[in-house]
């Protein structure tokens, strides 16, 4: 097939290539090994070129599935996820995933088809102004007007997506641009005079932070996804260990610092640990690294780190001082900045009293829940997951209670094993993200931890598991409700469970079976353990429907408007 195409190309016009062929060349130049997408009218020329070039393409069952899969892929590989969809509804179905990738800084390059340039603006069939629609939710976007611009635009897009603060870049390709032929030119190179992210930190500010460390008695590190994006785990560990600074993590930062490390306080924020939250509340020097002080992390800002001097290391200058007034601003990549700090480190302060105090908090107020012989506790389920996979699996979640339990109880020790929708909080994210992760890292076990609500938003992607025989294990944390909504209604709305109870449910095991996938219903710890062990060994896709206590809540919890020190449910 490939040979005939080359022959045909040579026989017609040796020097002319179509926009669609330039697209393929652009992907090859960027060493793209897989696309996630869904065809349609406006991208027919591109899909034809894909067919001839034999590019690996994962056909999801919905464009939303494609973009979340690309996010999962990007999250575990560090490479941009590549998405392809058609114009109009194909493009608008991507919007949720684009917004999700934007707020969580996930590198994506998204290609959408567009109606031909001569009918743009006429409300043509399947026309949508996707460039206008996605302007506020992309790092940058383009509409290609001429085929010859495509190589430069693709090069720029991949560069923008995966440098600085990473994010999604969209390229809209009108159908005629994909068809039109043009002469192949030398690569023009990228021209982005308005885009020069700062990677190297200002050494004066680095020194100021180093001096502040000597003055401090109670320093704490707050580490976020920026550490993972910069691959700065080793530098972080060296920095924390040298100075003996305890480490609290954001939801998206989990895995950047080993959960088992004695200095690790765990996750901070609304459902964070007592030790992590009290450390942020009580510290005298707070060093944020690649974290953006989001409201779910800080709680009420009037009570957040009020006694502390704030130092903030971030690659995005706009994050510094956005939510929290910052005394020591350091614009730079986490890896470069932590290396610089490690290089100049000489004297160090003595924080042993502080470390001991926080260790006591850790042992006195660990994460806890009430056990009950007759029911499967969701927290226990996460612990079993950790035990059976020996903490080494990639875990992708949806949003809600199960997400928080996974964050709390699947103690991540390695980076890039944790995929979750943090900023946008997208239900339906977890399962397709797990598919993308498995495509990106086939050697690692991948578990999709989903709620019974969220799974029903994107479960059509079971078709992809069957299609590719991808051994993703779907663990449904089934409490027959939209658990987090139900929890808030219980606590803040006097148990008026308005539209949060899902009594009517499909039989998930039969549903899996309809797709030719094995499944099992589990109601006890033993059943979970057995089924998981068997599923991991089988190297086949599997759906495990776990019936857990329906009225379990996530604790500790900080109610909206409260400070980090006002946690409820600390003792389970």
């Amino acid at each position, binding site marked *: 097939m490939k040979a005939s195409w080359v022959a045909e190309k040579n026989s017609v016009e040796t020097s002319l290539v179509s926009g669609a062929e330039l697209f393929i060349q652009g992907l090859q130049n960027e060493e793209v090994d897989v696309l996630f997408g869904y065809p349609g009218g406006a991208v027919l020329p591109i899909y034809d070129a894909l067919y001839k070039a034999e590019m690996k393409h994962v056909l999801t069952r919905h464009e939303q599935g494609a973009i979340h899969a690309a996010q999962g892929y990007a999250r575990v590989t560090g490479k941009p996820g590549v998405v392809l969809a058609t114009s109009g509804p194909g493009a608008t179905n991507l919007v949720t995933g684009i917004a999700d990738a934007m707020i969580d800084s996930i590198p994506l390059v998204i290609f959408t088809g567009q109606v031909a340039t001569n009918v743009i603006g006429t409300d043509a069939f399947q026309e949508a102004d996707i460039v*206008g629609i996605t302007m506020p939710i992309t790092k940058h976007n383009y509409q290609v007007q001429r085929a010859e611009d495509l190589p430069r635009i693709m090069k720029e897009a991949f560069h923008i997506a995966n440098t600085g603060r990473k994010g999604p870049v969209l390229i809209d390709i009108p159908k005629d641009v994909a068809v039109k032929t043009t002469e192949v030119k030398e690569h023009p190179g990228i021209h982005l005079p308005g885009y020069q992210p700062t990677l190297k930190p200002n050494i004066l500010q680095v020194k100021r932070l180093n001096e502040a460390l000597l003055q401090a008695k109670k320093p704490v590190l707050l580490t976020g996804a920026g550490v993972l994006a910069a691959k700065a785990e080793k530098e972080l560990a060296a920095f924390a260990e040298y100075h003996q600074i305890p480490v609290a993590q954001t939801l998206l930062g989990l895995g950047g610092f080993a959960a088992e490390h004695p200095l690790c306080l765990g996750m901070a924020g609304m459902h964070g640990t007592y030790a992590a939250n009290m450390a942020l509340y009580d510290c005298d020097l707070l060093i944020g690294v690649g974290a953006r002080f989001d409201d779910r992390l800080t709680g009420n800002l009037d009570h957040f780190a009020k006694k502390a001097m704030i130092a903030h290391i971030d690659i995005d200058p*706009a994050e510094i001082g956005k939510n929290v007034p910052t005394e020591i601003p350091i614009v730079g990549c986490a890896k470069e900045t932590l290396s610089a700090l490690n290089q100049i480190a000489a004297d160090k302060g003595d924080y042993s009293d502080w470390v001991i105090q926080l260790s006591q908090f850790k042992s006195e107020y660990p994460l806890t829940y009430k056990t009950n012989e007759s029911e499967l506790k969701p927290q226990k389920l996460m612990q079993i997951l950790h035990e059976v996979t020996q903490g080494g699996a990639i875990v992708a979640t949806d949003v809600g209670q199960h997400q928080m339990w996974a964050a709390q109880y699947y103690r991540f020790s390695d980076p890039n094993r944790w995929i979750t929708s943090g900023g946008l909080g997208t239900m339906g994210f977890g399962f397709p993200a797990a598919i993308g992760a498995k495509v990106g890292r086939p050697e690692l076990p991948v578990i999709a931890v989903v709620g019974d609500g969220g799974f029903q938003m994107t479960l059509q992607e079971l078709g992809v598991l069957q299609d590719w025989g991808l051994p993703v294990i779907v663990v449904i944390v089934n409490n027959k409700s939209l658990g987090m909504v139900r929890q808030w209604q219980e606590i803040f709305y006097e148990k008026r469970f308005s539209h949060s109870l899902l009594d009517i449910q499909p039989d998930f095991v039969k549903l899996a079976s309809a797709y030719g996938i094995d499944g099992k219903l589990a109601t006890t710890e033993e059943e979970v353990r057995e089924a998981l062990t068997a599923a991991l060994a089988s190297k086949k896709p599997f759906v495990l429907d776990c019936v857990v206590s329906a009225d379990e809540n996530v604790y500790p919890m900080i109610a909206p408007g409260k400070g980090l020190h006002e946690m409820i449910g600390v003792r389970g």
Partner: protein
Amino acid sequence: MRRIISATVLNESGVLNRLTGLLTKRQFNIENITVGHTEDPAVSKVTLTVWVEDDRKAEQLVKQLHKQINILKVRDLTNMALVSRELALIKVLTTPDTRSEIKMLIEPFRATVLDVSLENVTLEVTGDSEKIDALIELLRPYGIKEISRTGVTAIPRGTQKKVLELHPYSIM
């Protein structure tokens, strides 16, 4: 507080949309905005007047604008020594009695008459916003039929004071 922000942007389609969209998303209220070419045809200059609550909001605005890929440079001109100008066209009702009176009135403002008809005159005035406000107030008793203002455009003066009492931004 009122801030005058100047942004040099690549002269590409959608860039103004991107800029104003960003302001909407971050809840900044644009009082006026002017756009025009610069000495380089590939580059345009946007001058914005916005109301912000405090310095931190102003800093956010500058930083968020700067993040846009096709915005090259952003400057908050508010605390700089600058020249700023706005142009206004004002159509005032006249009678044979008031026509010469109005002409006298506008003289100190260096406004010029662009168009005269039996019922009204159209004036052009250039200056800072306060001057234009003052002229409008003066003409109001005669009956203003229509006003069209361009919004402020500004440029920093060639010489800036050596000692700046600016509140320093945390970066930049």
